[in-house]
């Protein structure tokens, strides 16, 4: 166990020392700040247009443009970019070392290959977690500080749900947990591809290509696609939004979590199996 912690410490140290790690942090801060500034200036105008139409049905009162709504919008927007930011670091974890030759440095230590892969995977998950925490701070905490706290008017595909502000905190917690699981799949996929490919860029591009292909499959209501859709991780990456429905589709959320978890376990197992047998030729 001590040797594993030592390897994990090394992986975390390297991750935090690499310049590319901070690209993700910078992007999140920039996008959040940019959208918050835009909503600060133009948000009321946009919302008054939306609420004008709702006024015909509801009596809308109070501060709708609040921190919770901004967070909901930011999360929907960034769920597209987050996989890229995660893959940028995790897709390079093995292939980058193989390409630069430092993999020999790692594999001539007493640490086993399984421990090395597990340490890299945990380090990737830690980075993903930090990225999400930063998103949580920027999207939720900062937005609440700027726009205040209020009820959330959550617009899902075909429904509008209004959730009281005192009923939101736990929903945000679970939403970020599901987002973490989703990005955990992306991190695991990126690392698995990184084991198979010996250059830095291809695994990152491949992850994005897979996400795009799966998302396109998910967009079409075709019978042949319907068979595979429930098993594509991209289908479940947006299941965090279900937490902002009323009633909450608990079974569907559990199923999504199970599918995401199964993906993580499968991908990690593949990467361990392959890496243990891989010839290091660089």
């Amino acid at each position, binding site marked *: 166990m001590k040797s594993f912690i*030592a390897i994990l410490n090394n992986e975390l140290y390297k991750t935090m*020392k690499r310049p590319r790690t901070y690209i993700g942090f910078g992007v999140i801060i920039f996008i959040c700040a940019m959208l918050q500034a835009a909503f600060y200036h133009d948000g009321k105008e946009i919302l008054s247009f939306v609420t004008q139409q709702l006024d015909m049905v509801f009596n809308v009162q109070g501060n709708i443009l609040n921190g919770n709504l901004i967070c909901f919008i930011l999360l929907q927007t960034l769920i597209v970019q987050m996989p890229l930011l995660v893959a940028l670091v995790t897709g390079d974890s093995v292939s980058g070392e193989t390409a630069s030759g430092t993999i020999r*440095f790692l594999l001539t230590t*007493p640490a086993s290959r399984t421990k090395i892969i597990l340490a890299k995977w945990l380090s990737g998950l830690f980075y993903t977690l930090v990225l999400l925490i930063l998103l949580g701070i920027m999207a939720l905490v900062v937005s609440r500080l700027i726009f205040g706290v209020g009820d959330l008017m959550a617009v899902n595909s075909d429904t509008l749900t209004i959730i009281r502000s005192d009923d939101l905190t736990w929903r945000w917690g679970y939403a970020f947990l599901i987002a973490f699981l989703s990005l955990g799949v992306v991190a695991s996929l990126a690392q698995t591809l990184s084991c198979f490919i010996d250059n830095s860029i291809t695994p990152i591009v491949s992850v994005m290509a897979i996400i795009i292909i799966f998302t396109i499959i998910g967009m079409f209501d075709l019978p042949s696609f319907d068979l595979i859709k429930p098993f594509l991780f991209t289908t479940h990456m947006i299941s965090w939004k279900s937490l902002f429905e009323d009633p909450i589709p608990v079974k569907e959320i559990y199923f999504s979590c199970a599918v995401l978890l199964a993906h993580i376990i499968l991908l990690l197992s593949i990467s361990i199996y392959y890496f243990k047998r891989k010839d290091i030729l660089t």
Partner: protein
Amino acid sequence: MSFAISLQNVTKKFNDFVAVDNLNLTVNRGDIYGFLGPNGSGKSTTLRMIMGLISPTTGNISLFGTALSENRSEIMRKVGCIIEKPDFYTYLTAHENLKLFARAHQLHYTESQYQDLYQLVGLYKREQGKVKTFSHGMKQRLGLAQALLHNPEMIILDEPNTGLDPQGIIDLRKLIMQLNAERGMTVLFSSHILTEVQEICNHMIVINKGKTIAQGNVQQLISSESLHVNLEVVDRPRALAFIQQSPWVSKLQQEINKTEQVIHFQMAKDEIPLLVQQLSAHNIDILSIDYRNQLEEYFLKITHS
């Protein structure tokens, strides 16, 4: 067990290409063992297999009496290496790189212990520089520091002189000798330059195209007792007719190319003047004579091929 490395019938294939072909090698503890072969001969593949970076297709590899496949972790604590070229995390300093390696070995060194190591490899006061600013020679020195960091019983150095300046090569040679003499450290030293190996190694193996060409004690392989002598004469048929009726016929080597003017012998160095004397006495004009020891002959054949 007195051996540090034992390879038994080791073969490595990459699809149809045989990189290492049925190689047998035994390195005894305390040896400075030379691993010689031209570029692409299979040296690095063999060293990678010894370090567990590549799995052999067939055969067994044992280090310090333990099969590599059984207890790699324990073996790695006893071995330091530079394989191919020393690669480090370029965004970290030399010191940070070594600390990562020390942590992986669960070593807790004091700063003065690190300083001693930098002094030993010639990196003193350069350790806080980022590796990306290092020359190849400095990386090679850092590679050596990494190989020696955990005070291993054996070091495996894959062409360690590459990129070093002449003084660096002399320093490295001295260091290898010193580590072997003072700590009894076993050294496996690969090179494609014959003289490098001859100068520091006591045993050696020569490989080409994955196959063993020669193996044994360096002194025996470079002995003057069995030299390859090439004699160039004006009238070869006449010279051959004389030799075939003389006691020199037993020293005659199999003809390689009958159209050339050269006759090949295998003999001791002190026999050469007598041969020249007798040929002259029979009016056989000699154009040139040269000789090589067994090892040089092997190596010349390899590099020519």
